[in-house]
């Protein structure tokens, strides 16, 4: 056992330094900033708002399902509620969640760059998100949309008489926000790495962001053009997907899921990155099988493009492509299994401390494992015939999206909160919130697995009475879950003013972003760092566990 000495020059007083936070003060300087860290903060604030709107939709849904007849008097209200929930959560919260907030903030720090490659584009993509979301919100304010977030034709293109076009415009614009973010990240990772920061010295979060950006770049344009076609069909009353004019509604589903299934990996891949960072830091170990974990991210991104039609097994596609897509869907589970096993194996003979981010991370592994395994059931053709479009599917992807992506997002926020703000979050309340979230989540979504196998269809405003027990359980869990989400909001804001000074590296992490004061200065590092060690090399004794003697690079 060798100690990590805590070197004084990194314990230097944090006050009185110019940081990216106090460099300038005007609102204007924030709205026109080109600093990736400030843009990350802007993203965090905006998507928190979108999350609340989406959560409102979820609350309506869960309350309505308390009684078999449905509490909301109008089915239309319920349909609009779950559409708001889906659209806001998927397109405006989950997709930008980790990449645009933590990614923007951390990517240049982790690779030792002063900023992303194209700061102006970075800011532009935030404004695109805001413009797109304002379209979506106006669609909601003008009376909402009732197509569900999937916009299946011909209902969305011909039959729905809600503000579909407005919503589509919002998602279209938001898509370009994603594209520009991904473009920025790919170029940054390729061209802006600090000297010595080779590909296999990159933190796994960076690998995950690279894979995510690939999907952003190659997938998003397809959903853009697909939804644009729906809008055209709706406005001009001409048949593209409408069978009345010879169109094929199943083609829409193909094109929609060509993006929207990889979009699932947009949501979960960055979470994988966060978990890899947290686990290694709080176990003080190298990740088990770095190369495998790194490449599994890219493999997931690529294979993720080959599996979309497993959403169409019961939609009338040919039996043969059903078989093809089922096999490919199982294939994508392999790299995912590698990740889960490697994280678990990383704990072996480690020095595990169960602080809040670690609790979230371990909770993530458990919940994501359940989500992934139920995913196998849905990828099994014979079972999907029964489970498709039931609450089993709902439970499955909430285990991945909420139990996976959001748990990782919260864990990451706690983990890097000291770096972002220079303040520590209250550890006790952090642990409490993590526990509440975990319990509330399982109480909410596990009953839905049972409901699903019993056959309760999704998007039902009213349901047969024998399903009520599980719905009541689920709603009860949802209220617990809500507490688990409100708590961090409160105490993190509280910590901004009253939190303890964090210091540059409170968790003794070895990755690069911790080797600069927190909050970091505007250009991240006083001097361009030189990377001289493999990632997570906690076992190599260097002063204060820093792999980076930040000597002048010049």
């Amino acid at each position, binding site marked *: 056992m060798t100690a990590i000495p805590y070197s004084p020059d990194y314990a230097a007083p944090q006050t009185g330094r110019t940081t990216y936070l106090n460099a300038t003060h005007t609102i204007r300087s924030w709205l026109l900033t080109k600093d990736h860290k400030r843009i990350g903060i802007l993203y965090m604030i905006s998507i928190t708002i979108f999350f609340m709107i989406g959560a409102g939709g979820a609350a309506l849904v869960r309350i309505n399902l308390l009684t*078999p*007849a*449905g509490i909301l008097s109008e089915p239309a209200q319920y349909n609009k509620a779950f559409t708001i929930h889906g659209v806001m959560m998927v397109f405006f919260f989950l997709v930008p969640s980790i990449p645009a907030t933590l990614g923007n903030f951390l990517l240049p720090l982790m690779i030792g760059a002063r900023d992303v490659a194209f700061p102006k584009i970075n800011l532009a993509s935030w404004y695109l998100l805001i413009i797109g979301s304002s379209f979506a919100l106006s669609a909601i304010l003008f009376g909402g949309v009732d197509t569900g977030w999937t916009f299946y034709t011909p209902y969305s293109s011909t039959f729905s008489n809600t503000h579909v076009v407005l919503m589509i415009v919002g998602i279209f614009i938001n898509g370009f926000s994603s594209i520009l973010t991904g473009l920025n990240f790919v170029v940054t990772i*390729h061209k802006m790495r600090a000297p010595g920061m080779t590909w296999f010295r990159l933190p796994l979060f960076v690998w995950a962001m690279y894979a995510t950006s690939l999907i952003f770049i*190659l997938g998003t344009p*397809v959903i853009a053009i697909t939804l644009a076609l729906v809008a055209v069909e709706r406005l001009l009353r001409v048949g593209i997907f409408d069978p009345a004019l010879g169109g094929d509604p*199943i*083609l829409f589903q*193909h*094109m929609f899921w*060509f993006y929207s299934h990889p979009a699932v990996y947009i949501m979960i891949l960055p979470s994988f990155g966060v978990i890899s960072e947290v686990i290694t830091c709080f176990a003080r170990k190298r990740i088990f099988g770095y190369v495998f974990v790194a490449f599994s991210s890219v493999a997931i991104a690529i294979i993720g*493009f*080959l599996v*979309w*039609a497993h959403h*169409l097994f019961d939609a*009338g*596609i*040919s*039996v*043969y*492509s059903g078989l*093809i*897509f089922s096999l490919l869907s199982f294939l994508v589970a392999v790299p995912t299994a590698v990740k889960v096993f490697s994280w678990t194996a990383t704990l072996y003979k480690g020095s595990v401390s169960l602080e809040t981010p670690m609790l979230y991370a371990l909770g993530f592994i458990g919940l994501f494992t359940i989500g992934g395994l139920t995913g196998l059931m849905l990828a099994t053709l014979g079972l999907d015939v029964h489970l498709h479009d039931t609450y089993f599917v709902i439970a499955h992807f909430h285990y991945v999206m909420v139990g996976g992506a959001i748990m990782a997002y919260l864990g990451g926020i706690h983990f890097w909160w000291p770096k972002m703000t220079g303040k520590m979050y209250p550890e006790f309340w952090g642990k409490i919130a993590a526990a509440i979230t975990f319990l509330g989540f399982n109480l909410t979504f596990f009953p839905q697995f049972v409901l699903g196998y019993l056959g309760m269809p999704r998007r*039902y405003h*009213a*349901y*047969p*009475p024998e399903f009520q027990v599980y719905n009541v359980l689920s709603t009860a869990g949802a209220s617990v879950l809500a507490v688990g989400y409100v708590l961090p909001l409160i105490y993190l804001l509280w910590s901004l003013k009253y939190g303890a000074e964090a210091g540059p590296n409170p968790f003794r992490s070895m990755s690069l972003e911790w080797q600069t004061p927190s909050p970091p200065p505007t250009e991240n590092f006083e001097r361009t760092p030189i990377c001289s060690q493999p990632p997570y090399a906690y076992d190599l004794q260097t002063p204060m566990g820093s792999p980076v003697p930040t000597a002048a690079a010049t």
Partner: protein
Amino acid sequence: MADEHDHVVPTQVYARVLAVLMLLLVVTVAAACLDLDHIFHAPYWNMTVAVLIAITKAVLIILFFMHVKYSSRIVWAFASAAFVWLGIMMTLSLSDYTTRNFPEGSPTMPAVQTGPEIIRPAPRPDAVVPGASAAPLPHTAPQRTPAAPPA
């Protein structure tokens, strides 16, 4: 690396490429005038030829006009990735549409080997038989039962 990238392509190259492109344009028009499917007794010949020529043109433009020929490997990768992904989307979507009715026939077909002769579907012994001996039950009028019966 740098010098390789600031590589200045002589203008004659551009001129020659333009000439080839124009030639290919003429060829593709000429090919479209012929009924190749009929000539080769196989479908999709016209389409294949047209697309192949288009691909050739695109590759010429990418290699020379867009300097990929003189660029780093990463540019090669980016330039090809997009088209690879497009190929994925195209082939996997078509894997559905081309096999919809294959080989057992369309989705409504029962799994039986059909010969050139007429296959008799199974008789319908349960047809309406005037005056069947079974005692008629009280007819249950078809009704719309909502999921949640207002109990």
